[in-house]
C-alpha cells in the first residue's frame, strides 16, 4: 500500500512528528535562545549524535582541520616565497605555501 493510501491516522501521526521536528529545527537555528530552545537543541543533539565507531561522517581531513595562520595567509596572498616551507609545488612553484592542513595524497575518495 502506498503512502497516501495509508490510514489517515498514520498520516496524522507523521504530520505531528514533522511539526515537532520543525520546532526542533527552529530552536537549533536560533541565535538568541531561551531556555526552551536550549533544552530542545540538547534533545536534538542527543538524538542525532551517533554512537562512537558508527559515525559515518568522521573523516581524517575534516577532523584534522585546524585552520590557517592569518599571517601566513596574508603572506600567501602577497605571493611571498617564504611561506613555501613545506614542499615545492610542481604547478605553482612560486605560490605553494605551508598549509596547516595535511594533504592526503592517497586517500582520494571515489568519485
Amino acid at each position: 500500500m502506498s503512502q497516501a493510501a495509508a490510514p489517515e491516522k498514520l498520516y496524522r501521526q507523521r504530520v505531528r512528528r514533522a511539526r515537532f521536528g520543525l520546532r526542533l529545527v527552529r530552536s537549533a537555528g536560533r541565535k538568541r535562545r531561551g531556555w526552551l530552545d536550549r533544552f530542545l537543541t540538547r534533545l536534538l543533539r542527543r538524538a542525532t549524535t551517533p554512537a562512537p565507531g558508527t559515525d559515518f561522517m568522521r573523516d581524517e581531513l575534516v577532523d584534522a582541520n585546524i585552520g590557517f595562520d592569518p599571517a601566513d595567509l596574508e603572506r600567501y596572498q602577497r605571493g611571498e616565497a617564504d611561506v613555501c616551507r613545506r614542499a615545492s609545488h610542481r604547478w605553482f612553484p612560486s605560490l605553494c605555501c605551508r598549509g596547516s592542513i595535511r594533504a592526503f595524497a592517497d586517500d582520494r575518495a571515489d568519485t
Partner: protein
Amino acid sequence: MADRSERASEKSVICASCDIGCQLIAEVRDGRVARVRASDNPIMRDNICMKGIYAPKSFAHPQRLLHPLRRVGARGSAQWERVSWNDALDDIAARLQRVIDAYGPEGFAVSTSQWNTSTESGAGRRFMNLLGAPNWISGVALCAGNTAAVNRMVYGWFPQPDYSATRCIVLFGHNPRRHSWTPIYNAIRRAQGRGAKLIVLDPRRSESAERADIWLPLRAGSDAAMCFGWLKVIFDEELYDKAFVRDWTVGFEALRRRVDEFPLARVAQLTGVDPEQIRAAARLYATHGPSVIPWTPITDQQRNSTSAIRLHCTLRAVTGNLDVPGGEMLHGLNPDIVAETDLELHDQISETQKAKQLGADEHPAFTYRGMAALTEPTRRVWGRPYVNLLMGSYMANPSAVFRAMADGVPYPVKALFSLGNNTLMGFADMQTIYRGMMNQDLIVVHEHMMTPTAQLADYVLPGDSWLERRQLHDAWGWTSIVRISEQAMQPPGECRGVYDFWRSLAVRMGLAAHFPWPTIEALYDHRVQRTGMSYRQFENTYEWYVPPIEHRKYERSGFATPSGKVELESSVLADLGFDPLPYFREDPPPDPAFPLQLFMGVREDEYFQTGQRHIPELRRRRPEPEIFVHADDAQHYGLTHGAWVAVETPTGRVKGKLAVRSDMPRRLVRVPHGWWKPEMPQGRETLSGAWEFSDAQITRDDVDYRDREQGIPHLKGLPCRIRPLAAETTP
C-alpha cells in the same frame, strides 16, 4: 598552525564553494578567516567538505583578481591595464547602451548563476527586465533550474525531499559523498540508519550503489525508459494511490496506455537491466513509502530529459508522495520575506521582448513562452504570477544564445556579461561559444580568478566571496526556510559584490529609481521588513528562519497547473506543440567510428564545476583530469592505467589520464567536468589549458543529441572513442 590560544570571533556563514550551501562557522583572527568548520547546529552536524575547509586559502590566492582590469590588446591577448571601478562602470554603461541602440536590448545577454555570486537578490534580472533584455542564461539550464520548470508543468512547484522522515530514497545516477553534496550524503546515511531503503540507478557501481538495497546498473541515458518500467509494474500490480489519482490527476488513462507500450522485456532491452530487478525496485519504491526521488542532475542532462523529469514527477504523484511528511514537500515561498523572484520584476519586460527570447520558438520548456500558461495558475495558488524557481523558469536557451552570438541568427547578440560563471566551459559546444565570444562588442566578467572566459573579456571585475559578504539565502524558492550568512571579513583589494555591480550600472543607465537601495544591507532591510526587524536584528536573531510548514496544501488551493491538478498528460506541452505524454526516444543508429558511450558532467570531490584548481592542496590530491574506463576496454584499445589518452567525439577531443576502474561498466567512458589549469599560459591560444582539457569541447549539441522540449544537450551516453596519446603530445 593557527594559534588556538588566541580568541577568535565566529560568524555563521553559508558556503558557496559548491551549489549545496552548507551552513558553516568561520573563525576570524586578525581580521581574516583562519578556519572554516562545520556548524554547531546538530541539524547540520559535520556538514563540511574539503572545498569549504580550504576556502580561506582559495580566497587568499596570490593570483586572485583584486582590481578591475581593462583589455588593452586584441581580444584574448592577455594584455590588461588596471582601471578604477568608476572608469570601468562608466565605459561599460556607455558601451552597453551603444549595443542596445544598435541591436535592441535583446542584443545583450547575461550568463550567471546566483549560487556563487549569492548577493544578487534578483538585481541582474531586474536590470535586464527594466531594459527589456530577455536573454538570461545559466548553468541551471542543465542543472536543477530546468527540472524546476518541468516540475511546474506537472504539479506547479518543485519539491524538496523530506529526508528526515522518508523510508525509501531513489538516486537516479548521482552519488552524494563525504566530500561532495555532503549534507545530502549525511541525510541519506542517517535515513538508512533509521531503516530507510536506498535504490540506486547508476551505470557505475558507485559508493552509493555499494550501500544500496537495490542497485540497477542501467545504460547511460536510459532513465526515462526505466521510469516507464517502474510505472508498468506499479500500474499492473495496482500499487498506486487510487484515491489521489482519481481526485488529483488528469490524463491517467492516456498515460497508462503510453506506459503499456513499455513491457518489462522492452524496458530491460532499453536499459540493460534484468526485469526482475526492475520489478523489485518499483515495488520497493511504491510500497515502502513515504518515498523520495531527490533531484538529480543526471536526468537533467539527457536527450529525453523532459520526459524523464516528468516521469519522476509522475512516480511521485501516483504513489501519493506529494506534499506529505517523508515525501516530496511543496514548500512555497516564505511569506515573511520578499522573495528574489519578486524583486526580478518579470512583469516589467514587455510581451514583445519576451517573445524574442532566444530558443523559445524551438525549445520553449523553460522560457517565458513555455511558462506563460502557468502564470494565472501560479497567481491562484502561490499568490504571484511569476515564480522563478531555482532561477530556471524564464531562461533563454543557452545554445541558441551562443549561436546568435557567433552567427547573428536569428538576430545578433553583441554584449555578454558573465558573472561567477565560466561561460566558455560551462555549456555544450565550447567551439561555438568561443566563436561567439570573439564576435562580441562587449564582454564583462565578474570573477575571482582569470578564468578562460575572463581571458576573452573586455573588462574583468573582481568579485567578493562568501566569506566577505552578507547574504540572505532563500534558496530561490526551493524551500521556504530562509538562512543568513554573516560577513566574516572584508573583501581584499577592490573586490565587490554583484549587487553593487548591477546597481552601479543601473544608476548610470537611468534606472536609479528602480534601485532605491544603495547597499545590499539596505535591500535586505527591505526584504525582511515584514518580520518587523531590521536586517541586522534579523541576522542577530536567526541562523534559519523557518515558517510553519503545511502538508497537502493542494487540498485547499489545488495545484498551480491549468487544470488545478497534477497533469500526467500536460496541457502546457500540448499547447506548445509537443507530445503531452512522456516518451522515450531511442538512440540514433550506432556510429562505428565512435563505438563507446561517454558519461560527462561529473564532479570530483576536490572541485566544483570549473573552480578550485588553483588550490595547491586540492591539486596535489587530484593533479590531472582522470578518465575512467573498464579494464576490458583499456586492454581492447591498448590503454595503460596512468597514461595520457584522448577522448574524441565528432565535435572535438579532450585529454586526460587513464584510470582503469573495476567499478566502471564495459563500453562506458567517464570524463570529469570543468578542467583547466590556472597555472598554464593565458590567452586565446591556450586558455590556460581549456583547449586541452575542457569537456565542453566534446559535447554535441545537434538535434539528435538534445532534448526536444528544453534543447539541453545529451551528456549521458554520447557516442565517443578513446585512444592513447603519444608521449610527445602529452602535457
